[in-house]
């Protein structure tokens, strides 16, 4: 591959950019960028070399940062990123997604905003906030955050979102109305007879796999797959060491290949099971799972990997990356089979996006 491999990494203390070639052996690191602001989510457009970064300063509030030169210079804006003077204060930006000319931002408290000028001006997607269940949404441990935005790749009228402790939703009419997409997803933190509600599931990460209808999610209560755009979900947790984890990644061209990082449990510390670091890979859409740990620490690895801290790029073979709250960044250039540390001593890593830039 002739292009550069670029990782954009959001951390609690700024954004970082790592660059390598197609071999992905040596990496250079730049940062902290975005003036050291806490950055929850980043998105990179390989064609235009535009990077977007969403986050929020404890002093100066939420904003979306933008660079049009692969991170050399930055601007920021939160124009329109508000529920109005009578609405709740937006704490931070949790998610960024881009589809054609539209950029989406997910925020805390949970809501969706869109921009048609690459982040300079924002407008509230009121249809989601007006969903009849909104009054009953409750925050989880990570707050009431909209953390996953999945625009349909060919139908601009369709978008899925994931909201912590609330669940998944889809619009099929250009964001005017939204429907819950949680059937079959377990909420094992509810009483036994209430574990499959219409909403209230704690989705941790929502992904589209095949460009059409195949979705995956890592949830508080397991890993799930949908073949019909989220109308019905199937539990694919069996074979994994834990129901609990945060991130997932999906192969860019083979929708049956996914990666996840199970943690030992919601109430057991949320670190690698037995303190041995591993990424789990499936090549059959979650029917079976393979533990991939070569190159990862196998003792005293009390590592936590958060929901956006896994990235996948489209080199051949595909590269997979994840970052920990301890500031370590690991990469695999053989589709997750073997791993090596590519950065350490970063601030707590909150997000990792990977791309091949020409």
């Amino acid at each position, binding site marked *: 591959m002739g292009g550069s491999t670029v990782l954009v990494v959001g951390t609690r203390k700024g954004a970082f950019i790592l660059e390598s070639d197609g071999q992905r052996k040596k990496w250079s690191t730049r940062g902290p960028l975005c003036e050291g602001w806490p950055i929850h989510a980043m998105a990179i457009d390989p064609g235009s070399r535009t990077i977007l970064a969403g986050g929020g300063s404890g002093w*100066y509030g939420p904003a979306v940062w933008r660079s049009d030169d692969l991170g050399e210079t930055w601007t920021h804006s939160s124009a329109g990123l508000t529920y109005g003077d009578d609405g709740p204060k937006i704490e931070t930006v949790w998610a960024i997604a881009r589809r054609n000319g539209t950029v989406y931002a997910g925020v805390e408290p949970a809501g969706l905003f869109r921009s048609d000028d690459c982040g300079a001006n924002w407008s509230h997607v009121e249809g989601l906030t007006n969903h009849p269940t909104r009054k009953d949404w409750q925050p989880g441990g990570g707050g009431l955050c909209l953390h996953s935005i999945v625009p349909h790749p060919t139908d601009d009228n369709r978008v899925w979102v994931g909201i912590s402790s609330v669940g998944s939703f889809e619009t099929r009419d250009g964001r005017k109305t939204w429907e819950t997409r949680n059937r079959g997803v377990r909420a094992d933190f509810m009483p036994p007879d209430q574990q499959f509600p219409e909403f209230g599931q704690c989705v941790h990460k929502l992904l589209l796999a095949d460009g059409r209808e195949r979705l995956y999610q890592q949830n508080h209560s397991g890993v799930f797959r949908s073949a019909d755009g989220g109308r019905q979900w199937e539990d694919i947790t069996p074979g994994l060491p834990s129901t609990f984890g945060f991130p997932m990644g999906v192969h860019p061209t083979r929708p049956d290949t996914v990666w996840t990082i199970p943690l030992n449990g919601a109430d057991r510390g949320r670190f690698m099971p037995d303190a041995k670091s591993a990424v789990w890979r499936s090549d059959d859409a979650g029917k079976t799972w393979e533990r991939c740990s070569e190159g990862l620490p196998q003792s005293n690895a009390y590592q936590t990997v958060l929901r956006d801290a896994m990235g996948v790029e489209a080199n051949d073979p595909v590269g997979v990356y994840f970052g920990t709250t301890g500031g370590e960044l690991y990469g695999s250039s053989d589709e997750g089979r073997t791993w090596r540390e590519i950065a350490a001593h970063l601030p707590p890593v909150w997000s990792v996006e990977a791309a091949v830039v020409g």
Partner: protein
Amino acid sequence: MAVVVLPRSLLVLFPGTPRRLEASGATVRELIADLDKQVPGMWDRLCETGPAIRTHVNVFVAGERASLETPVTGDSTVHVIPAVSGG
């Protein structure tokens, strides 16, 4: 015109903005609105829903902690100072 003194952490968000600049207004709210005309985006960094001055930003007028409704006169010096917070 009042003199407004801005902190370093705010100046870096708006490259080229001087640390001390003049702004007009009868209240802090009007002063910040005028600042926003001179430096677009400044209102969003200093003010939140309500509107109110952001929780972790302090504005002092003539040495006294101010709200958006605090009067400002032409000879006022207004300091914007980030609060002691973070980690």
